């Protein structure tokens, strides 16, 4: 546990010493903010229209109208930006040979994997926390329901957790950061796209298997405001599998 924290601390120190964490966080907040803004503009113009037609203040659902698309946008932006946070985690250690220090120190491999995962997860959590102004703003000027927003955030947080686990695994496979980021992006994209194929073969058993495997399917409920154990199990499993395979990859590389 102590060594996990030591590795995590070092990782955070390096992430914040280099510009990468700031750049990624800034881009994430900027783009998601821009999209949020345009959605809000659209929603307000729509409510104006409704008001003109009905002649009364409409009861529009900001959760549905604004936050569902916003969470979807966040998911896509994270798919593009989180690989940039995770790409250096292990690839860099191998490239500059600091992995020799870690592997010849009395720390278990699990501590190395977990320390790095938690560091990236913490950075991501901070990134996500920066978007809290969105619900706060609409809560102040309008009326929103908090529960669906919190479950939406939980869903996005777990989704990011999966992206990070996949990114860490990709980073363990190579010493080239560019390749690591590309592999993780491709893997995550694939998890996403499975959902599209499943729609084409929807009625077959194959279709239901593919639907189950698709990551988008499992975050949808969270965004709608539901916490389903099935989704929790799915996302947690992906994270655990990602971390476990990373551990095995590192172990097997010692034997080469």
């Amino acid at each position, binding site marked *: 546990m102590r060594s996990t924290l030591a590795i995590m601390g*070092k990782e955070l120190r390096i992430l914040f010493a280099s510009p990468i964490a700031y750049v990624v966080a800034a881009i994430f907040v900027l783009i998601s903010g821009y999209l949020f803004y345009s959605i809000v503009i659209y929603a307000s113009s729509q409510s104006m229209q409704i008001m003109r037609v009905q002649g009364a203040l409409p009861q529009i659902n900001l959760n549905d109208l604004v936050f569902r698309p916003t969470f979807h946008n966040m998911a896509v932006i994270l798919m593009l930006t989180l690989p940039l946070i995770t790409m250096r985690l292990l690839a860099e250690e191998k490239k500059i040979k600091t992995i020799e*220090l870690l592997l010849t120190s009395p720390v278990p491999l699990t501590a190395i994997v977990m320390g790095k995962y938690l560091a990236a997860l913490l950075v991501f959590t901070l990134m996500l926390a920066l978007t809290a102004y969105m619900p706060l703003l609409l809560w102040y000027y309008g009326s929103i329901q908090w529960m669906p927003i919190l479950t939406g955030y939980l869903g996005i947080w777990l989704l990011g957790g999966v992206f990070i686990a996949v990114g860490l695994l990709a980073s363990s496979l190579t010493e080239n950061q560019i390749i690591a980021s590309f592999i993780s992006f491709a893997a995550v994209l694939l998890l996403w796209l499975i959902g599209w194929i499943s729609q084409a073969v929807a009625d077959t058993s194959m279709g239901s298997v593919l639907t189950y495997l698709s990551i988008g399917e499992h975050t949808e409920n969270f965004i709608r405001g539901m916490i389903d154990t099935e989704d929790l199990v799915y996302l947690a499993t992906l994270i655990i599998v990602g971390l476990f395979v990373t551990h095995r990859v590192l172990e097997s590389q010692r034997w080469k």
Partner: protein
Amino acid sequence: MINVQNLTKRYGDLTAIEDVTFNVEKGEILAFLGPNGAGKTTTMRILTCFMPATAGTATVAGYDIFENPQDVKKHIGYLPESPPLYTELTVTEYLGFVSKIKGIERKDRAPALTRVLERCALTDVRHRLIGNLSRGYRQRVGLAQALIHNPEVLILDEPTTGLDPKQIIEMRQVIKELAGQHTVILSTHILPEATAICQRVVIIHKGRIVAVDTPDTLSAQLRQSEKVRLTLRTPSPDTADKLKTVAGVVSVFEESSADGQVFMVECELGRDIRTELAAQAVRGHWGLIELTAVRLSLEDVFLHLTREEPKQEESKEEVLKGETS
């Protein structure tokens, strides 16, 4: 302190080291000598539990490297060939991190840090980023990293490569001071270094140990002839022939230098022909400016032992093992 038995490491069909057996006593400094790609780094990586061996066993500080790797790691300080440094951290931050992962108790960390900063002469640069330090300082930070948990055994992979002559002397001094309290294995392909700081030398070539002994014994054993170096300013064309006529001379090699022609005169073992050579030089008006008996250095021993190395195979080994020189 270190006991290595028949250690073998294969990468597929390629044998990196084979049947490596040696012992290191407590407090001793042992040099691992060999050309690039001989298996020095591989052996060290196995001893530090970075990678497992294919066959054979080893114990370090009483712990088996296969049975108790975590205990072995606690008692070893390792400086790899390229010091494992995080350039984004300051020296203090970095050593603080290392002290945590080496399992030093919280209360002992600060004294340990002060001790290594002093020992490696890093106190002045302790708040600077490692990325901004010169090569010499980086190497010292690497050494500090290996020393911070005060390990019984130190394994240093080519600790002086890339340093300037002054830094090399300083680094050697630091390593020499470590003897006694620490058991040290260091690898090098620079032979004077082994002679200068080590009590014993292991010569490794193509993955096999070819000799284990003190530098003096090794050179004594292999001395087969006496050599005299003769520098002449104005030699005549028949100088070499005339030198060969001196009693006891076996062969003469000629080469030019800035001062004049250099003649390496080899003669039978146990004969001192320097006076005869001097007399000959004066008689021929060759302008004698230097006459020295050449002792067989470790360098010669080394070349002798590793003479018939097929170049091709060696370079192949190097690539496959990823041992960078």
